[in-house]
């Protein structure tokens, strides 16, 4: 289908496109590359070229207590936020994809709004809520903030998964004698396994990195990004580079894993649909 | 004179010897990775001819069409149009247009704009575009829908627009990739007739791809039967039907009985059947069409005829005729076509003329 490339003859226009693509990738990865390189630099974060390469900053990092406390906090928050987002996001997706009810359009917009709204608005509005109700700011308030903001991620992922699910499978189940409840648990949910896992992974990663909403809802305990933020105010050391490199490595693994899951889900769904189609054709 | 016709319109003859060659496909082969899809195809298409490339899915017919259109390039071989090498040109420089299987109408343009597309791209003057488009739409009876968007018209109507969009450019050759497959049976039959008469009127060569053998027979001047990337037989519908070259050709087009026989001294023996034929000794395969098997009563056997008795095991009603399966003993089962208004029969006597048993080549499996 992409006959231009498969013919291995790049016409002049596409040569420029290739160049542009390379340039954009360089732009996207350059800062990250710099970050990683300088995490090994003994002399600080600036200064070209980097001199003595050392693992010293990583050693400092591992001995740094407050950072690891904040990592623990972030992990707790991420897991709790994941639970909330999925608990409310999955039913929301089901409601939007399957059911018709008054106010559905408004509901959809409301659920998806935090996805595109700048974090400051979500964070501040929740701050006002907690202020009015007299709730003290703490990791709990952060969990509530993340959970709310990330429901939209769970909803979008599961919604996409539901759309790929062939109705014919559920209809076959009903035809064979299972009721709606049984069909839901035996057919629908297993097919949603992959989107749910994918959503969980995404929510976890986003929560670990989240700073905009957390900024306003922080109490005594810091999450990792806010701990780093605090350090930045005091002065830059390559230790921050080191922790950033580690964050990058984890995010990389998480996202690649999430993508693979998604692709596997898509081909499984396609295979299922093809199977149904083939059986239908035979029957005709 | 219609603006759609080409100059030098030649009178169409069934055989292509009278008309000059328009397209010459020479030893074209195509591989996708390790998978050979087309092997050594050579074919000539005459001016003004309606040629159908017929084959099952996977036979390579669409690939061959796409090579002619320019969307794929051949792994080997050449395609010539007149004196010019066609396969060296990108699709936008070939004087060939395509009617796509799913029409491929541009959804963001109106019907009119769709049809005008090729002319606009060629920067023809506005007045010319307007009149040619109007005429093309009139030809396919879609003038009333000129300002509609493709999403608002039916499948059959979209198909006509796709046709108009291609023909308005006055290509030397029109390619049609299973254009009728998405239509339901009645509309399909109607369109077959319309397409055929359109082709006659416009006078350019059509290469039509389909898997439907009935469609091929109804519309074509010649049929090129493709199997697993090779040409089984290229001939007019009558010839392919009456004198199939291979077992596959005999079975793919219409119904047939394939009889495996032993030849000794000019006599063919197949189970309980015997007839004479001037063939060398050895095994031979024969194709016998059901309509050549007549239900008879009476004792006199005509010269050159063969008779056989059997029990009727199954009958299929086809409206004007019936197809009956007759078990003749020795494991021989014959399918015969009888007029539909016969009474119900249990045992029959069938007769066929020896000349109707056409010798065909084997069709070995191709990987």
């Amino acid at each position, binding site marked *: *289908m*992409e006959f*231009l*490339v498969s013919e291995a003859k790049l*016409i002049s*226009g596409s040569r420029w496109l*290739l160049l*542009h*693509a390379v340039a*954009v*990738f360089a*732009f*996207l*990865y350059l800062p*990250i590359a710099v*970050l990683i390189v300088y995490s090994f630099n003994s002399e600080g*974060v*600036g200064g070209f*070229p980097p001199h003595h390469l050392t693992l010293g900053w990583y050693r400092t990092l591992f001995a740094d207590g407050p950072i690891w406390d904040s990592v623990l906090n972030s992990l707790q928050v991420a897991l709790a936020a994941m639970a909330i987002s999925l*608990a409310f996001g999955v*039913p*929301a997706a*089901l409601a939007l994809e*399957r*059911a018709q009810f008054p106010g559905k359009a408004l509901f959809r917009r*409301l659920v998806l709004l*935090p996805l*595109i709204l*700048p*974090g*400051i608005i979500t964070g*501040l509005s929740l*701050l*006002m*809520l907690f202020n009015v109700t007299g709730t003290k700011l703490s990791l709990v308030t952060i969990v509530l903030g993340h959970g*709310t903001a990330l*429901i939209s991620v769970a909803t979008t992922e599961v919604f996409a998964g539901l759309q790929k699910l062939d109705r014919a499978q559920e209809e076959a189940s009903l035809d064979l004698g299972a009721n*709606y409840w049984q069909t839901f648990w035996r057919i629908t949910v297993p097919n949603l396994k992959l989107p749910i896992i994918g959503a969980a992974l995404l929510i976890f990663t986003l929560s670990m990195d989240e*700073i905009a909403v957390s*900024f306003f809802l922080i109490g005594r305990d810091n999450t990792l990004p806010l701990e780093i933020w605090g350090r930045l105010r005091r002065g830059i050391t390559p230790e921050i580079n080191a922790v950033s490199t580690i*964050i990058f490595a984890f*995010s990389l693994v*998480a996202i*690649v894993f999430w993508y693979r899951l998604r692709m596997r889900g898509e081909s499984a769904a396609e295979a299922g649909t093809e199977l149904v189609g083939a059986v239908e054709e035979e029957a005709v | 004179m219609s603006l759609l016709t080409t100059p030098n319109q030649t009178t169409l003859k069934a055989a292509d010897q009278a008309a000059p060659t328009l397209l010459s496909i020479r030893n074209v082969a195509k591989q996708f990775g390790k998978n050979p899809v087309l092997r050594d195809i050579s074919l000539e298409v005459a001016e003004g001819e309606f040629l159908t490339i017929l084959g099952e899915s996977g036979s390579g017919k669409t690939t061959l069409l796409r090579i002619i259109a320019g*969307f794929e390039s051949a792994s080997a071989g050449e395609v010539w149009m007149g004196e010019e090498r066609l396969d060296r040109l990108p*699709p*936008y420089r070939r004087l*060939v247009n395509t009617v*796509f*299987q*799913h029409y491929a*109408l*541009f*959804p*963001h343009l109106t019907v009119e704009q769709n049809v005008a597309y*090729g002319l606009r*791209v060629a920067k023809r003057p506005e007045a010319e575009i307007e009149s040619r488009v109007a005429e093309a739409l009139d030809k396919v009876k879609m003038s009333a829908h000129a300002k509609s968007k493709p*999403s608002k018209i039916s499948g059959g109507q979209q198909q006509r627009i796709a046709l108009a*969009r291609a023909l308005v*450019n006055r290509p030397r050759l029109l390619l049609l990739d299973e254009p009728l497959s998405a239509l339901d049976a009645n509309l399909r039959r109607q369109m077959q007739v319309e397409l055929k008469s359109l082709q006659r009127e416009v006078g350019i060569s059509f290469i039509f791809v389909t898997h439907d053998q009935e469609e091929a027979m109804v519309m074509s001047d010649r049929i090129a039967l493709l199997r697993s990337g090779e040409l089984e037989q290229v001939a007019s519908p009558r010839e392919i039907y009456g004198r199939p070259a291979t077992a596959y050709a005999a079975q793919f087009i219409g119904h047939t009985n394939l009889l495996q026989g032993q030849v000794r001294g000019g006599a063919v023996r197949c189970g309980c059947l015997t007839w004479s034929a001037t063939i060398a000794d050895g095994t031979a395969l024969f194709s016998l069409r059901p309509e050549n098997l007549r239900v008879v009563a009476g004792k006199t056997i005509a010269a050159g005829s063969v008779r056989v008795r059997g029990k009727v095991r199954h009958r299929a009603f086809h409206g004007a005729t019936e197809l009956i399966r007759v078990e003749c003993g020795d494991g021989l089962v014959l399918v015969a076509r009888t007029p539909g208004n016969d009474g119900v029969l249990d045992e029959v006597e069938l007769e066929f003329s020896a000349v109707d048993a056409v010798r065909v080549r084997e069709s070995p499996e191709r990987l």
Partner: protein
Amino acid sequence: MFSRAYKVAVAVPPLLWVTVFLLVPYLLMFCYSFWSVSASQTIQHSWNFDNYLQLLRVDVYWQTLLRSMWIAVRVTALSLLLGYPLAYFLSFYAGKKKDLLYQLVIIPLWVSYLVRAYAWKTILGSDGVLNTLLQYVHLTKHPLEFLLYSPFAVVLTLTHIYTPFAFLPIYAALEHIPRNLVEASHDLGATPGQTFWKVIFPLSIPGVLAGATFAFVLSLGDFLAPLLLGGPSGIMISNIVVSLFGAAYNWPLGAAISLCMLVLVVGLLFFSERLEKKWSFS
């Protein structure tokens, strides 16, 4: 097909949560914007329009908002310029490598915002990588000051962050275009260039609109990049809000500005959605 009980079980819990934690907070923000803060730093629940009037009268708010919008416009334009050709390349020219390249584009998206903004800070500073590199190869003698703590730094960083955001919907829209339309266009005599402008681009417009909206809205409301890299000349509207909730302690005024932003964003989203529908043809 679905019973009432199912609908209730599935729709009500999220509805409740979203009402409590989204709708009510917005409403609270609405209320706060009409209150005021007293000299003793307490919030008085007296209803008035003072905050809004202040927004209209005091220059700094106006100017900052305009500057923020201008920055957002530049970020959006650059993100589209970078993102569209990339998406086009991936969709139509990348062949088997398409999947891998797509992953490469989305990976930076999920690598901590803070990490990436910080990285630019280390690159652009007067002692940073770029300046010392330029001096090392003798292209400049003195560090270029404008690189950091300026609108330039903010635009650069935000473009870096939001280009993948712009890329995603454009790529999705391009992938959606049936390839036989491209073949049909070629078949009718249009070169790849003509095919792009007459067929591909028009059909990708909803994706472009979505990408532009993402980039614009998110960069408009950004406060981290300006805080890290903007300096005094790079302050954006969200920074003002942050300070009003912090040191400058004026929650009602901050709420008023936030509400204006919310209304602006929702309005933009609505407008963009209408436009997208108008340009969508499938």
